[in-house]
């Protein structure tokens, strides 16, 4: 009996040290495929995550933002590279991104912006109105973007109970409570 209690205590103490992947599929209804949904672990009470020193890069290539959707941790600086032989601009109409406008710059140059708040910021180019991209600034570093088939994997999520959210550029957001214990499956269905 004494031995059993000792084992149980060891498990309780060691629990936060365990982590697993959260994986699953997001079925996106009414759009061409299930790509570009961002699945992320919402704010964890009592936990904060320092902004990474490393910048994230978004390319403007072949008149497109690449990647189309980029999740980052709040505080991350994003470098916008112009790889095209034409001028590009980057601006956002969203207040949570200070409605930034980085001006216009030629091929090979980079301009940067630091996303300081929780935000799903649309990226637009005044020179080419059809271009559209998104930076989703999130409170935790546990996030992933779905592939065309809707599959995703969030690596190394500590075991525990979390609110897992899904954001999509065109569809309604969704949330689910997920108990992570090692490899954990969580699937979603979202629509307009």
């Amino acid at each position: 009996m004494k031995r059993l209690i000792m084992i149980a205590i060891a498990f309780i103490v060691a629990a936060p040290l365990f982590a697993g992947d959260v994986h699953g599929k997001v079925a996106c209804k009414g759009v061409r495929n299930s790509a570009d949904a961002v699945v992320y672990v919402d704010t964890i009470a009592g936990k904060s995550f320092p902004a990474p020193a490393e910048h994230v890069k978004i390319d403007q290539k072949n008149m497109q933002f690449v990647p189309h959707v980029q999740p980052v941790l709040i505080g991350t600086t994003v470098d916008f590279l112009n790889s095209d032989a034409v001028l590009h601009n980057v601006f956002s109409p969203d207040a949570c991104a200070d409605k930034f406008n980085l001006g216009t710059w030629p091929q090979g140059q980079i301009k940067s912006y630091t996303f300081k708040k929780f935000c799903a910021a649309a990226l637009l180019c005044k020179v080419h109105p059809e271009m559209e991209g998104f930076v989703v600034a999130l409170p935790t570093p546990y996030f992933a973007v779905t592939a065309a088939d809707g599959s995703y994997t969030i690596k190394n999520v500590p075991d525990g109970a979390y609110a897992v959210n899904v954001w999509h550029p065109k569809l309604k957001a969704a949330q689910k409570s997920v108990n992570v214990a090692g490899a954990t499956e969580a699937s979603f269905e979202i629509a307009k």
Partner: protein
Amino acid sequence: MTILRSRLILFSFLLGFGLVLLNVPTASAIPAFARKYETSCQTCHVGFPKLNPFGEAFRLNGYRMPKETEDQVKIKPVSLGSDAYKRLWPRAIYPSDIPGHLPVALNVKFASVYASTLDDTGRTVTKNDFQFPQEVNLFAGGTFGDHMSYLVEVTHSERPDGGSDTEIEHAQLHLNSIWGPEHLVNVKIGKFAPDFADGFQEMWLSTNNGIDTLFSYDPVGLHGGNSLDGGGISLPANVRAIEVYGVSHHRLFYTLGITNGIGPGASGSFNAHANKDVYARVDYKLGGMGLDGDTTGVKLPPENWRERSLRVGVLGYAGDGKGFNMPFTDDTGAQVNIQDRTFTRGGLYASWIFEDLNVFAVALSGRDRLDTFAADGTRTNTASYRYNSWFVQADYVFLPPLQGSLRYENLKPGDKSVGSMRALNASLAFFAYANVKTILEYHRDLHNTKNYEVDTVLRVAF
């Protein structure tokens, strides 16, 4: 005199029929939509161009699928502005898109026309004419962004006399769901078949879909109307107009239009004077799919042409033909001009679908106030004439590739010295493919059994 007049009337009846055959109100069915959605013609058609209930909803939705989603549009459109620009309007142009493919389609029609008519001497004249091709229609149709759609049709037809005609039959731009609930307020501008008659989409199964007694009756004559070669005055098949239309509560359809009057103006304008004609129609559909495609609480069979429904409506047209002279020779041999000063049309419409059977009918009553002017411009007479016409048609799907149609028409013209004009039209359509149709059609003037026509038509749409 009476016999000669009667023969002339019969001849004009056949002439009218021939004109209608050459210039039928065309359908809004085009393979450009099939390409856009990568779907068969049968999605929207009982057999092209006759629409099934879903196709009618597609048409009334401004050539969009009911509750259309992005993934239904298989050929990705070309963006003219990303969605986020909506939030920037009016500081930026509202975002839109254009089709990612060339949204055009062709319709080629070949006809073999065998006609027997009485000429003005009473002799029977028969013709057997290979009209290969009779006409080619170039269509373009599609949508711009969320709230605009368009349809264009240019028809090139070859006449039996060796000449040819090219006409813009449709050039219409729709503004869809511009106010209030979805589908409630739409605006259409351009040249098109007005929705008060375009909505008789049931008639499109047969070749002779112009329905002579409805569209081709000429109400103007010395003693009232007496012939069928005056297309455009009784009910215009095409108008240059602005039309508001919509669907409320899934089942109530309305349309209101303002259009140019009859005839071209003397000064090179499209209108004979500054006044405009107006028209309206209100329908209600009981049972079956909603007019906007709604299927809430409705159980529909998998065969998408079938349902059990009844659509009933009223329609009206008020016209002003003042200033547009139509020359006549009166009984004394003098040249006179007649103007259809004011005219009104009122009608009832019903369409009943019971599984494979579709029976539909329109009854129309018209009144024309005719002013007669002497050559010097003095008005010599004013008189009102009333005419009544109706038709009933039954279409039946024997098998999806084999469909039949039978129609009876009746017209009591304004000129009471002329008897009723009656006609029978029977046709059998066979679909070799969804886009290749042959029709065997028989049209008989019930006044004189020597007046008849047999048409064999091949239509290809691609």
